[in-house]
Each structure stands twice: as structure tokens, then as C-alpha cells.
């Protein structure tokens, strides 16, 4: 193979997180007390602005059985649609009481996972467009060779969803609904249910970002 005289590096290849991913990323779920401050699925602090919501669901394999060893992470903007990140270029201050990121593991028995967070505001899209409110979500697990990315949209944002550039870039319109979470009220709490189907009927849309 001929090489040009500049060197571009190849991205380090991905490998599965394996069945014991919790040891490193959620040590408390593996009953390991090592760190004083552990990362978790609570994105809401006392002074965080915005509507409190709970996001929950399960991840199913090709036989429709829940993954009980899956690790889930989310990344989202604050209530005003600003990311608490140095790379957000909107020139608006992000909520100082919001990390925007959380991590959880499915229950070892039932496979249910959940986050306590806030509903994100709309974020600018490309070329002056506006994206519907959404949460970026990635799953890692045994049997998954590279983290699977998707987005969570909200079923009570139908108008914004209809104009969302990413949803509209999915040519198979019937697949778009696999990225839309269902709002319910439970004991005075707002809950969005979002099940992920890795393979088969109603397979969730996964993104190459």
C-alpha cells in the first residue's frame, strides 16, 4: 500500500463492554465501594431548572427477551436547549446545576432501567433549522461490539417532531416511531416509556453519528 507523507491515525477499534461492564462503570451495582463520588442516573439536582421527568424502559434482544446486563447512558441539553459543554457555540449560558449526562444499568432480574432527569429544550439543528426536543442515548453490553446510538423523542411534541431534521432524514417513515417515547402519568410523576428493540419486528432505529 502507498502512503502519503502525512500520517492520519485510525480510531482505536471498539470491543464489547462484556457482561461485567458494571465493575468499571457502575461499581456500586457490582457491590464495589471504591469511589467517593459515583456516576449515576440522577441528572436532577435541587436547583436544576425545568420539568422533572422519569425516562424508563427495557432493551430487548432478537427473541424479545430483556437484556439484564445492558448499560445505558444519556446526553441531553438543559431546559433551554443549551448543552453544558465547552463545545456548545450558542452563546447562551447553560444551567450551572445540570451535568446533562447520566448512566445506569438494567436491573439484573427484570431488565428495567430508568433515569430521573428534566425535559430538554429544543436545540438548533444544521443550517438554521430547529430540532425537536430529544435525548441522545447509547447502549453497551455483552454481545454488542460497538455502542448502539439512538435518540429519544417525546410523543407530546408531535408538531416539533414532524419538523425534526433527523427524524425526517429517515426514509422509512414507519421506523420513525421507534424513537418516540410515550408519556404517561404515574402517581403525580411524568414518565416517558422508551423500549429499545435491538433486532427483529419494530427494530429501533440506530444511528451512525
Amino acid at each position, binding site marked *: 500500500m502507498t502512503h502519503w507523507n502525512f500520517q492520519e*491515525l*485510525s*480510531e*482505536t*477499534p*471498539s*470491543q*464489547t*463492554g*462484556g*457482561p*461485567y*461492564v458494571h*465493575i*468499571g*462503570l457502575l*461499581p456500586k451495582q*457490582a*457491590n*464495589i465501594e*471504591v*469511589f*467517593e463520588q459515583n456516576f449515576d442516573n440522577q441528572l436532577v439536582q435541587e436547583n436544576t431548572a425545568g420539568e422533572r421527568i422519569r425516562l424508563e424502559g427495557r432493551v430487548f434482544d432478537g427473541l424479545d427477551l430483556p*437484556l439484564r446486563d445492558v448499560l445505558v447512558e444519556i*446526553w441531553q*441539553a438543559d431546559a433551554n436547549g443549551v*448543552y*453544558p*459543554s465547552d*463545545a*456548545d*457555540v450558542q452563546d447562551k449560558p447553560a444551567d450551572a446545576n445540570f451535568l*446533562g*449526562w447520566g448512566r445506569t444499568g438494567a436491573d*439484573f432480574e427484570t431488565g428495567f432501567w430508568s433515569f430521573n432527569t428534566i425535559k430538554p429544550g429544543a*436545540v438548533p*439543528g*444544521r*443550517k438554521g433549522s430547529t430540532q425537536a426536543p*430529544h435525548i*441522545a442515548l*447509547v447502549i453497551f*453490553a455483552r*454481545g*454488542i*461490539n460497538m*455502542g*448502539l446510538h439512538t*435518540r429519544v423523542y417525546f410523543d407530546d411534541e408531535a408538531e416539533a417532531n414532524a419538523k425534526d431534521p*433527523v427524524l425526517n*432524514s*429517515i426514509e422509512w417513515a414507519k421506523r420513525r416511531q421507534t424513537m418516540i417515547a410515550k408519556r404517561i402519568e404515574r402517581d403525580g410523576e411524568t414518565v416517558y416509556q422508551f423500549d429499545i428493540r*435491538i*433486532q*427483529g419486528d419494530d*427494530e429501533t432505529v*440506530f*444511528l*451512525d*453519528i
Partner: protein
Amino acid sequence: MSKLILGAYAQRNTDDHPPAYAPGYKTSVLRSPKNALISIAQTLTEVTSPRFSDEHFGSKDNDLILNYAKDGLPIGERIVVHGYVRDQFGRPVKNALLEVWQANASGRYRHPNDQFIGAMDPNFGGCGRMMTDANGYFVFRTIKPGPYPWRNRINEWRPAHIHFSLLADGWAQRLISQFYFEGDPLIDSCPIIKTIPTEDQRRALIAKEDKSNFLEADSRCYRFDITLRGRRATYFENELT
């Protein structure tokens, strides 16, 4: 000179990574999508990522030899692992969160679902974390993990390895992988490593013995560098927002 304006991350080269469906690694058969991934043009969502500060971390978070020690030192080979995190264009990746986890010297994990006969070590936990510095440099200390058997085919054995996870500047850089140790004969027969399609990329996961950085009468040393996706600069139209 005006401020550098950054565009999108370069496209992920899927030929440098394992495919989702890799039948030699049996668990992947029912846990891989049937549909092709849908590639999207990046937005602020994909180029941003959380920031962590030093106050999140304790003083022994990157010292797996001491961070779980109760009544003595863990048993096993003392090693230091160090290296640089860069992007594909060679720039250092600063303040990235690097998390690691591994088995003990017996090849046994401290996890409720691990029932391997290899002995537990009451003084070894097996997880650590750190931030890269301004040069993209990281260093941690640990016990070299043992290989362990697993049920893929019935007599399958993983080479010694350490799992690692990176959260850096952009969500698009999110990466979990594993690194191995130079010279381990199990590397050539591992079906998980063999999901990676090219020899060069398989070799990119092997930490090298770093002899001049051995610490006399104390620890050996391995060098392992990590490459993440990089962002292009924008000199003409900026379409990201």
C-alpha cells in the same frame, strides 16, 4: 487571526471496527440490529459532551493496587500502564474521562455473575478512573489480570485484558474497548478480538512492554496509546448551526 471554528467529527470508518453481527462471537447473533445503521449529519447534540472536574475524583481512583486494599496488598504482578489519548489528526485529547475495569490475577472478576473457580482476592477491586492531562497523557497502576475461561465454545479463553471507556469532547467520540498485553499467545485465538476485521487494527489494541519505564524492585510498565475521532476545522460556510 480569527478564532478557529470547528466543524463536524470525521466520519467513523466502519472498516476499522467490528461489525455488529459476528457469528464467531455467539452472543452477538441475537444482539445485533438487522437493519443498517442510519448515518446522520452531526448537530450540536453529537459534537458536545459532558465535562468532569477534578473534584469528582479521589486520590486513589487511578491506583487499583491500593484503592480496594483492606488488610494487605493484592496478589499478582505489579504493573503501571500509561500512554496518550489523541484524535485521528494527532491532537492531544485533554480532560477526557478514562475508566478501566478488569479481572484479578486469577482471572476472576469481582461481579455477582462471575462463578469461575479462580480465587477472589479480598484486596483487589478491579476498577479505576482518571482524566487525561493537557498533553492527553494518562497513567494508572494495577495488578496484571489473568486470562479466564468463558462459554462461547466450551473451551474458550480470553487473553489477559483490561476494559476501558472514554468520554471526551464530543458524544460522537464515545468509545468502549479492551486492550491486551504484548506476547500473550491467547490473542491469536480470541473470537472477540477476531471480530476486528484488520490485522493492523487488532494490533492497535496491544499494549507494549515499556522496559525503560520499569521501576526497579517495584513495577513493570506497559505503554498503550488511544486514538479518538477528530473534528475538522471550518474555513468556509459553517452549517453546524
